[in-house]
């Protein structure tokens, strides 16, 4: 549906480096990356706002690299929605239809179903300044969707909202995607949002796409430390080869099984990615299920909603190991898992991944 081949864009000091990406029809792709990494520039390049120095953009098999935005058939919704402040909601939604030469009456008829679907009929005569953030977002979506775009581009559409509105509108986006069937490219720096919405995820940093896969695959097998960090993997353990063994700040770890199929250079350090749920406090599984077992000191406990975050320290001033307990687990274990106490900890082999 959309294919980017080796796109290079230069804007002042910033550069998009050879970005290649594809989206299939009906897919919800989330582009995840920290702020200032070039996500919006990429989105605007796809929309035709910036012209690439190199590379090709294909939409439905058509090369649109040199086409202006109005010829591409894409819709865009920005973070702060960019509603036309001098027009009311109805005129905002009809703007695109009127640009195609449609009469006012026809455009009103065309937008009728969508207005009902998004439940914004009561807002039609209001100005954007009179709308809440959530209402503005639905209007911006209606304005883009009424043009029946091949692809809807969403630029951090939820980040300007409070948590309650964000949660509600996340479901709304899922519903729009499911019921209208529009292909969506959504950019965000919020991991939780990406995991909730994405069919596939592309991880971006410093103007490059680092990995592009299903969310669970990115999470299970990050291809670099940067991806692991962006994907929210909580523990990245450096392992150094010493006399045929792998040594970490926790001590010697047995990762030969995991490294069986990987080519490592002699003397090469590796990084072990360990999701938080792979770390067990009071481990109870058979011995060979664990990569490492030992005692760590509880450096910090932090209550976050239904979860309790634990920071476990090796005690030698090195790195930490981080995990979470459910509130129920924590209440059971709390006499033993207090700050400053030593607790037995096991790191499960299953689910860990080595990054070369």
């Amino acid at each position: 549906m959309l294919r980017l081949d080796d796109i290079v864009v230069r804007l002042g000091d910033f550069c998009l480096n050879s970005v290649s990406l594809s989206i299939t029809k009906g897919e919800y792709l989330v582009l995840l990356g920290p702020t200032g990494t070039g996500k919006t520039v990429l989105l605007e390049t796809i929309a035709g706002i910036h012209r690439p120095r190199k590379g090709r953009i294909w939409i439905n098999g058509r090369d649109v690299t040199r086409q202006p935005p109005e010829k591409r058939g894409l819709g865009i919704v920005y973070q702060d929605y960019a509603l036309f402040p001098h027009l009311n909601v109805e005129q905002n939604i009809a703007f695109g239809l009127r640009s195609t030469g449609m009469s006012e009456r026809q455009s009103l008829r065309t937008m009728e179903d969508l207005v009902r679907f998004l439940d914004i009929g009561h807002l039609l005569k209001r100005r954007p300044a009179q709308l809440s953030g959530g209402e503005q977002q639905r209007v911006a979506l209606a304005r883009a969707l009424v043009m029946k775009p091949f692809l809807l581009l969403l630029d951090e559409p939820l980040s300007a909202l409070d948590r309650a509105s964000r949660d509600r509108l996340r479901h709304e986006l899922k519903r729009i995607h499911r019921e209208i069937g529009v292909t969506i490219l959504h950019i965000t720096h919020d991991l939780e949002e990406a995991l909730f919405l994405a069919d596939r995820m592309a991880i971006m940093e410093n103007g490059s796409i680092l990995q592009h896969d299903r969310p669970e695959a990115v999470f299970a097998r990050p291809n670099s430390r940067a991806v692991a960090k962006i994907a929210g993997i909580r523990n990245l353990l450096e392992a150094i080869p010493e006399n045929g063994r792998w040594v970490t700040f926790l001590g010697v770890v047995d990762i030969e099984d995991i490294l069986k199929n990987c080519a490592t250079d002699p003397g090469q350090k590796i990084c072990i990615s360990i999701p938080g749920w792979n770390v067990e406090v009071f481990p109870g599984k058979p011995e060979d299920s664990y990569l490492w077992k030992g005692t760590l000191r509880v450096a910090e406990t932090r209550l976050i909603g239904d979860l309790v975050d634990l920071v476990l320290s090796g005690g030698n001033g090195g790195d930490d190991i981080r995990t979470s307990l459910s509130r129920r687990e924590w209440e059971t274990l709390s006499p033993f898992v207090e700050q400053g106490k030593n607790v037995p900890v096991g790191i499960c082999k299953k689910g860990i991944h080595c990054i070369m």
Partner: protein
Amino acid sequence: MRSFGTVLFGLGFILVLFVAMPLVRMILAADPAVLKGVLAETRVYQSILLTLRAALWATLLCAVCGVPLAYILARRQFPGKSLVEGIIDLPIMIPHTAAGIALLMVYGKSFLLGRLFSRLGVGFVGTEAGISLAMAFVSVPFLVNSAKDGFLAIDPRLERVARTLGASPWRVFLKVSLPLAWRSILSGAIMMWARGISEFGAVVVLAYHPMTAPVLIWERFGAYGLKYARPVAVVLILICLIIFFVLRALSAKQEEN
């Protein structure tokens, strides 16, 4: 905190007094009967009408080229952009009599553009067209800079969204950029028009006759003294103030809507 505000307020008030006092003093000192008599003088009201008309023409004609130029300066980066911005600001810097002489060197009867226009039946020396030309030259920076600020204040993403909705660059300019920058453009046009009305130096070099109001005031002051120049000056100030406040009120009302 309170004394800080009081000091700022006091200092600002001194400046307001500095500007307002001479104008208020002159208006209050005027005898309404004398003003009425002055307005009844054909020569006076014709010169006031000429001034208002010539400044209006200058503003309208400059808006046709100035607004697009302001948009380009606000939205595009191109080599020599700073030079263009500098050239537009130049008339504010140079003495206006010098500006008049410079204009004469290009639009005078014995110079290239002057000869060209004179073949088309348009002369600039001693004509209303010349007055408009001089007014346009010295006051156009007010229009271009204000319109540019207006365009700069528009979030470029509004224009980008409009393009993705199928609007051509022309439609985006006419339906999004222009309506949103309208207040700044109008404000710049009012400033340009007002500055044009008050222009003396460049106008007097290019077209002493027909006489604009500032030239008439100068002539009366030189030939007959303050007593005869003051009523014409008061009338001109009053007319300018009335038009200025009406246009400001209109643009404020539009903004409110």
